[in-house]
């Protein structure tokens, strides 16, 4: 994990990105915040009013919230949920928290340089990866999750 504090610095420093499929598209997260790709564990749910949180799961002794970001990224719930991408997000006071993101297939690592977002892209897109036959949006995890919560 990097010790960088600002997204701007991380944007330059994160040399690789984890690409993952949701619906018919692929998205990316900086690899320095991705901890692992895991088979879905036993989801434990309980009542809450936060949108798109599916529950929690136990991962390496930690309680990890499961956030289904598929609705905002693809417009519908993640259906296959073949894996959970475990990523780290910053929370209040500089602390960090793991979050599990259901994804629809296997991931890939890419080292292509990130390009600044162009055109009218959602606020959660921090950059773009230009791959052969594909432009992949690099997500700002915090903004995606916050956007989810506000919906």
């Amino acid at each position, binding site marked *: 994990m990097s010790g960088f504090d600002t997204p701007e610095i991380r944007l330059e420093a994160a040399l690789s990105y984890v690409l993952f499929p949701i619906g018919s598209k692929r998205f990316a997260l900086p690899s320095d915040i991705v901890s692992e790709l895991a088979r879905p564990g036993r989801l*434990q749910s309980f*009542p809450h*009013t*936060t949108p798109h949180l599916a529950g*929690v799961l*136990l991962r390496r002794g930690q*309680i990890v919230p499961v*956030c289904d970001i598929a609705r905002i990224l693809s417009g519908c719930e993640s259906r296959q949920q073949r894996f959970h991408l475990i990523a780290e997000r910053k929370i209040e006071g500089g*602390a960090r*928290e793991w979050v599990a993101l259901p994804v629809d297939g296997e991931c890939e690592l890419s080292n292509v340089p990130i390009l600044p977002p162009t055109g009218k892209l959602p606020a959660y897109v921090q950059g773009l990866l230009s791959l052969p036959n594909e432009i992949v949006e690099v997500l700002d995890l915090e903004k995606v999750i916050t956007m989810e919560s506000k919906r």
Partner: protein
Amino acid sequence: MNRKGKSSETIVVFRVADTRFGISANAVEEICGLDGVQLLPRESRTRGVKHSLMRREREHLVVDSASFFHMLPARPERVLLLRGSQIGLLIGGVDYMQEVSTLHRLPHAFQGDERHWFLGLVRLFDGIVPLVDPDAFDDVIGIAKRHIAQAVLADSETAGAFA
């Protein structure tokens, strides 16, 4: 109970429909059946409180847990009477009691009403449950009490008009 496991606490694991919750055993005065649970007069009912229970000559207002936690209606089987508050919780069954030593904070990702409902999460031998905050029901009980007082006042005014 703390995060380093230096002390432990017994919790009661109960069920509302298929969902399990925990509550500190210290917060529970009694677990009883539905005998004596009565519907409040229609004008006194609120969304979360529709019943009362007389127990040891004290009236307890009974919170419907399913409604309180925004769940689908569930068949009640028991009432948890909370210690020192004259509040009852209409629940499904009681599963078991377990001693736990660690209270995990609710992950920051949870930002809704659950932050008021639960003190945190506890790991059981067979899963994870939220630990209900006994004080979470104060607001709904306060509303119910005001509602009942207004209903009584309206009733007495009507009676006065006929006197």
